[in-house]
């Protein structure tokens, strides 16, 4: 139903897609929303396609986002962001990591990796903001911060303030010490800034 917010998070098994969606769900719940989160993961741990659905609002019934109704698509990998474009509603937005993870079937020469996923997405008329979350994370000192960079990227596209999501992210690291909390705060802000900069560049 239209009064719900539908967020689709996509990527590959092992990238942390499901955890990111769970943190988004926690933020929605913290604000008193009803929420449902579901995956089409298959044997996701084995490098397969993962698409994680989050729906929140006053009352959520069906957990699945139907094609053409996602408000935001958060893509952890370029070709995956492209794969799920049909899920977006008209006017929906894609936030995508420009990283490319090439699967063995492509390495074997059985299939081609799309030349320019970003251009393909633009071609179909959907709004898209692209940034290199992997490099941002590496520059902050740890590739594992990529997850938090991605959450920072979506933070200003939600029907609630970014600080709610940031709180939920940092809560996860509280027990692991102040240093990690600070790193994640920086990663989150870097993700926000990356989207802001990319949007400004387009405008």
């Amino acid at each position, binding site marked *: *139903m239209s009064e719900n917010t539908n967020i689709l998070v996509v990527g590959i*098994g092992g990238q942390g897609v499901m955890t990111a969606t*769970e943190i988004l*769900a926690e933020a929605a*719940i913290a604000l008193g929303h*009803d*929420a*449902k*989160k*579901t*995956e*089409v*993961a*298959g*044997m*996701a*741990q*084995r*490098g*397969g*396609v993962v698409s994680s659905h989050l729906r929140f609002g006053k009352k959520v*019934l*069906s*957990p*699945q986002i*139907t*094609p*053409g109704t996602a408000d935001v698509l958060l893509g952890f990998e370029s*070709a*995956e962001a*492209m*794969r799920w*474009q*049909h*899920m*977006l*509603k*008209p006017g929906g937005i894609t936030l995508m990591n420009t990283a490319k993870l*090439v*699967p*063995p*079937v*492509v*390495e*074997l*020469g059985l*299939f*081609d*990796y*799309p030349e320019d996923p970003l251009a*393909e997405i633009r071609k*179909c*008329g*959907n709004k898209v903001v692209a940034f*290199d979350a*992997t*490099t941002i994370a*590496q*520059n902050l000192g740890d*590739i594992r911060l990529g997850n938090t960079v991605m959450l920072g990227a979506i933070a200003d596209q939600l029907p609630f303030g970014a600080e709610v999501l940031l709180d939920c992210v940092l809560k996860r690291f509280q027990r692991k010490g102040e240093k990690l909390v600070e790193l994640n705060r920086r990663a989150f802000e870097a993700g926000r800034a990356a989207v802001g900069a990319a949007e400004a560049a387009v405008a």
Partner: protein
Amino acid sequence: MAAVMPAPAASRVLMSGNEAVARAVWESGVKVAAAYPGTPSTEMLEVISTYPDLYAEWSVNEKVSLEVAIGAAYAGSRSFCCMKHVGMNVASDALMTLTLTGVVGGLVIAIADDVGLSSSQNEQDSRYWGRFAHVPVFEPADSQEAYEMTKLAYELSEKFQVPVILRMTTRINHVKSLVTVGERNEYVGAGFKKEPARFVMVPGNAGKRIPLMFQRDIALRAEAEKSALNFIEPGSDKRVGFIASGPAYMHVKESFPNAPVLKLGFSCPVPFEKCRELAAMVEQVVIVEEVEPLIETELKAQGLKVIGKEILPLQGELSPNVLKPAIAKLLGEPVPVMDSVVPMKVFPRPPTMCVACPHLGVYYTLSQVRNLNISGDIGCYTLGAGHPWNALDTCVSMGASMGVALGMDKGRGEADKDKRIVAVIGDSTFLHMGMQGLLDMVYNKGNVTVLLLDNRAVGMTGGQDNPGNGRDIYGDDSPRVDFAKLVSALGVKEERIHKVNPYELPVLFKTIRDEVKVPDVSVIITDQPCVLIKDYHKLKPFEVIEDKCTGCGNCIDVGCPAIHVTRRAKEVKPSGREVDLAFVRIESSVCTGCTLCVQPCAPGAIVHYAPVSPIQLVTKGCSA
């Protein structure tokens, strides 16, 4: 998972259906819980094992897990057992007699149907067991219902002394939604009371229990008629009324908010009167159920005019975008069209083996040996059927690699007379249901080479412990199976048993090539742990010296996902034959130094990784 338990009563927690059932099991005072891992059911028992004051175990297979639960229920305690849909096929022998004895303490069996086959060899509707075994079936529609129904199932189980099936689907097991949790209530078991006429199911006793089972059916149907789990929501749009169960109910409510709906939570035996009540309110009745037309067929046999699988699919998940067009057509309305982009064509991304997986060496080797027919089994190694190995020819059911291999041997046609038969099975699958097949193979003098891939874990479901790794569900030490001794005890000759390190390709190749030539049962045991469990130790990563790589592609054939092609070229050999070259790099950040790609690299282009500076690392990691 660990965060679930401490939640105090009345708090609202985001829980998967599996976590919700686990919480309810604990709150219900269950004393014994047993299962064999299987997607999408696995997390139920994993989470149960984090709760105090109960006993949980990974059983060797689903039949044993149900028998353990039966014993506890006979002893008067509450017990729990869960499995994926195909697990009940294995456990059903026990179920079909359990229904005659009934239970003393409550027994709930949660069965997780993989509707849509996200990780299974078939798609089954476990609600059939309710009909076949004459036991009640509950069907939750979300986590809150999974939690509540589990608790109610214990009450029903004890009231009618019958095991209750909680039928879940992937869309219940793995969906997270809010659950209001409660407190644990101790359940004090009555103790085992000897009652041979009830618990010793010999013909004379069992025959007397059958009429009681049929009487119970009548009483259960009456209970379903008045159960609060079955309710009608009157709607304003009377053109179509729906009868829905499980997750399908949510899709109906989402799609047709104004339609009258009969929600069946206690769906077997079907409450016929409730269904008639709904039918009287509306112009047409549509049954929405996943996946087989069970309720539909029974209602049609009752003479009710209902519509079901005539307009809805017989396979896979239902969802609003399946239901809406089907109902629009039924009503003669225009089918709603989605104003979204057409799905774009992107390469498939099938699941693959992990970086440095010990199975990589096995499948690489099998792909290099000619004239093999390879019967496979259920686990990560089923992925060997895919690229680049294409080295697995059958996959049927848990343990089937053994019997299928023997049958391929005994039933070989003229065309296969020179073929060698190989069976591939993992440690946990072997202990689950493969041992008997191997015994059969030895006993009947088969000619099969068995590859027993011992990676010390139930890999595909997330690396659970099993008798093969010497740890129980709590991670505590327990007796560890010695596979060499075990297969020896089953009758495999000592000289035909080999333990091989799967990372030593020359040894593996020679052992396989030699053993397939011997007309006897051989067992080759590989002994390196799954890379996802704590027993695995990473080694120094590798990288490719660009100038030395000749583009031969041997390393790509190993199938490790850390190897990436940097450029392709064509070369014409002196013979005039044109060959494709693929030059590679190794993603050193994920490489764990297993050496599988180093061994087939003729020019010695793969060396230990020597990082230069973080900046260079970044550029390396980002090329396509």
